[in-house]
């Protein structure tokens, strides 16, 4: 008998599973747990889950292999990757491999909840998109995909190479649609370095959550969008052009751009 859960948590550490269950109870989310990705896959085939949150290092099947298996079996449940070995490499690799988000351990209640709530919203948009029949017009638009020539990290942030070799950085419409009611955005300063896969802006929403935007690429901030600093709602109106966030001088464009996904192939 197939059961319906909100979250499938996969981790070999019981305390992590327990705490995820405990924290999700704050939002009344039903959580199922698995001690290994292999058990998780078995459960996925039997039950229904909205989102999956999985560790990377596990005894039998690791997080990356889980992402591969899900892709092979054409299962598009959004996966959030979390790990104690939270390096930039792991973060970027998991996003490139198809995870929708990366949550470094240890995390706080707020971090987990904001991450999961984005995942839930992502899932809703995904389901609506899949359920939709017929042509998409202005009334049925689910999200505005980022334009061609743009590159994105996961589904959240984009970067665009300018003619002078600098890069523009911003967040995607899909990311905006997974968060609710922006109250304020905390930007980084000019001259500061942003690092691919690390937080480059904090977005405070009116549901008391803080959302970290992961930088699509590393570099030194040389310019910030002054209009956006004055009025953050600009980002909601036009996230891809008027609502850009930073101009950066990239530090290792050649290497890092290989781990970005071109926007021409955007699916959900």
């Amino acid at each position, binding site marked *: 008998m197939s059961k319906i859960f909100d979250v499938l948590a996969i981790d070999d550490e019981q305390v992590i599973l327990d*705490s995820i269950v*405990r924290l999700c109870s704050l939002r009344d989310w039903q959580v199922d747990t698995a001690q290994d990705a292999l058990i998780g896959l078995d459960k996925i085939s039997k039950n229904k889950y909205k989102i999956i949150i999985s560790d990377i290092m596990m005894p039998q099947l690791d997080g990356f292999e889980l992402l591969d298996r899900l892709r092979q079996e054409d299962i598009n449940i959004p996966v959030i990757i979390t*790990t*104690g070995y939270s*390096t*930039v490499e792991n973060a970027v690799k998991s996003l490139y491999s198809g995870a929708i988000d990366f949550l470094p351990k*240890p995390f706080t*209640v707020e971090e987990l909840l904001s991450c999961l709530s984005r995942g839930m919203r992502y899932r809703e948009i995904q389901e609506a998109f899949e359920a939709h029949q017929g042509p998409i017009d202005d009334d049925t638009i689910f999200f505005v995909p980022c334009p061609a020539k743009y590159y994105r990290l996961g589904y959240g942030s984009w970067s665009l190479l300018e003619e002078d070799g600098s890069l523009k950085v911003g967040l995607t419409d899909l990311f905006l649609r997974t968060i609710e009611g922006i109250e304020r955005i905390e930007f980084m300063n000019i001259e500061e370095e942003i690092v691919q896969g690390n937080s480059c802006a904090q977005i405070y929403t009116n549901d008391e959550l803080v959302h970290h935007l992961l930088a699509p690429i590393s570099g030194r901030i040389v310019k910030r969008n002054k209009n956006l600093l004055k009025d953050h709602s600009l980002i909601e109106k036009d996230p891809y052009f008027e609502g850009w966030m930073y101009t950066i001088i990239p530090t290792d464009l050649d290497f890092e751009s290989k781990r970005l996904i071109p926007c021409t192939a955007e699916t959900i």
Partner: protein
Amino acid sequence: MLNKISFKLIFTVSLAVIIIISAYAYFNIRAQSKVLLTEIERHADQESEIIKSSTKDAMLNNNRELIHKIIKTIGRQQCIHTVRILNKEGEIIYSSDTTVIGKMLDKKAEACYTCHASGVPMEKLPMKNRTRIFRLYPDSARIFGIINPIYNEPSCYNAPCHVHPRNKKVLGVLDLTICLKFVDQKIADAKLKMVIFAIVSILAISFILWFFVRIWVSKPVNELVDATKEVAAGNLNYTLPELGNDELGILSRSFNNMTKKLAEARLQLFQSDKLASLGRLAAGVAHEINNPLTGILTYSSFLLKRTKDQPELQNDLSVIVRETKRSREIVKGLLDFARQSVPKKNKANINQIINHSLKVVENQLTISNIEIVKDLPENLPEVTVDANQIQQVFTNLLVNAGHAIGEKGGRVSIKSSVLSLKPYGNAKVKQALCPKGHNLMDPVVKIHGLASIKMGAKADGNSGFIHLDPIYGKNENHYGIQMKEGAQLDLFCPKCQVSLIDKKKKCPKCGSPVYFFEIPGKGRFEGCTAKGCDWQFWQEIENEGAKDYIEIKISDTGCGIPKENLPKIFEPFYTTKGQKGTGLGLAVIWGIIDNHNGTITVDSEVNVGTTFTVRLPVA
């Protein structure tokens, strides 16, 4: 023993000596024998002539008795073996050995053969053919024989006995044989002497060789062997004594050089191993600690969320959450260490950070009877720093101060203040480009621990490199070129050779040519090429004017650092704590402060104390 160099050398040399001496002896003895034989030949010939002439009269008178007597007398002489006179038919007529008289000799007998070999007997014989050497028995002494033909003379055929007709040419033969025993004895003596001489010379040469091989080869080779054994056993600090100027001396010096290089390589390997194990440790620690930390952080933040109505609990819980978050940052810092992560800067009050650090080490210091003196004035401007990293800096410096004081007690003072510093003498050049955009920074040659600016240089026909001090106005440059005072210096980019001299400008102080380079985003840097002149000008930075810095001084009354160690203390892996320290503490501190565009300097006096001065820009 057989494999020793000295033995091999002695063996080969002895062999050579034996060959040489044998050859010498062979030819020498041969020559000697020849001389002896010739002498004997002459002597025998003479003697046979004497016998002939002394018996002549008796022969003419046919006085046989007298002839017998004479021959007997002569035959009795020591050296003479036999004296025989044969007639033409081969009959022995007279002989010192009376038993053979009257016997006929075959023409093929050794005494007759030389003349009678061919059909017609020879009448005149050269000396060579008249002599012969033979042995009576194989083991008897050699015998030398000489035949002397007795020719027919007028007195013979005119003699009253008329025994010999006139037409006969040869009447008979006088055969004299001489025993060569004494000659052989002499030759044998000479041979023996030669052998003794050969043995003595081999012994002497062996001894001399052994002696000098011992001094020149064995001793240094043994030292080398001992040294290689030491090195093989792992003692790379072993050095060979000076072994002279020969090839072995050169070998010993290159051996010492090699062990030195090996020791350095091993140290580097050891250090990179240290770093690698630190990396593994970091990864392991990160993974293992982050899981339990997740438990603490999620549950504590969960509790914090659920106890909003209990302010008492809230305070305590927020401490747990805050400190867990700090642990998270420490672990992350550990992971990022190898990656040299960029600091997460935020505006912060430096005194607050100092107080946080003090809280961490306070207990440790008070236990060791260390008094902490704080001078932290209020209203200091805020600095933009990564609070965790800067706290790590102060914590480490305070812990180090505590270690320097040790158990005996003392005082640690920490003082913060604001000061305004002009860019001249303080601003750092971190990037420099030639007009064509090549990077001039050279991280290999460091001045004040910072990468220097490398320029190609030409002066007086010499060429080389100049490393400029990266601190604006400090001018502690390294001149890698030979030049006279006041020589014209041509500077250019070491990569593309484009000139770095500004032809339109002259130094306002001394009138010398001026060099320049670009600093990305910070305009143009100019300076005087003259060696003694300290003029430098950096428009963009001068426009910014004097900058405010927060200065933090941490002083201790500890053991101090010897002057010669001061330049090394910020180098990675330099440690005075042996295996207890990683040697990374101060190197990490230096990196953190440098990442914050600040400076850290040290003053120290042995047994008085050490002061670390950290300056961070106010922004």
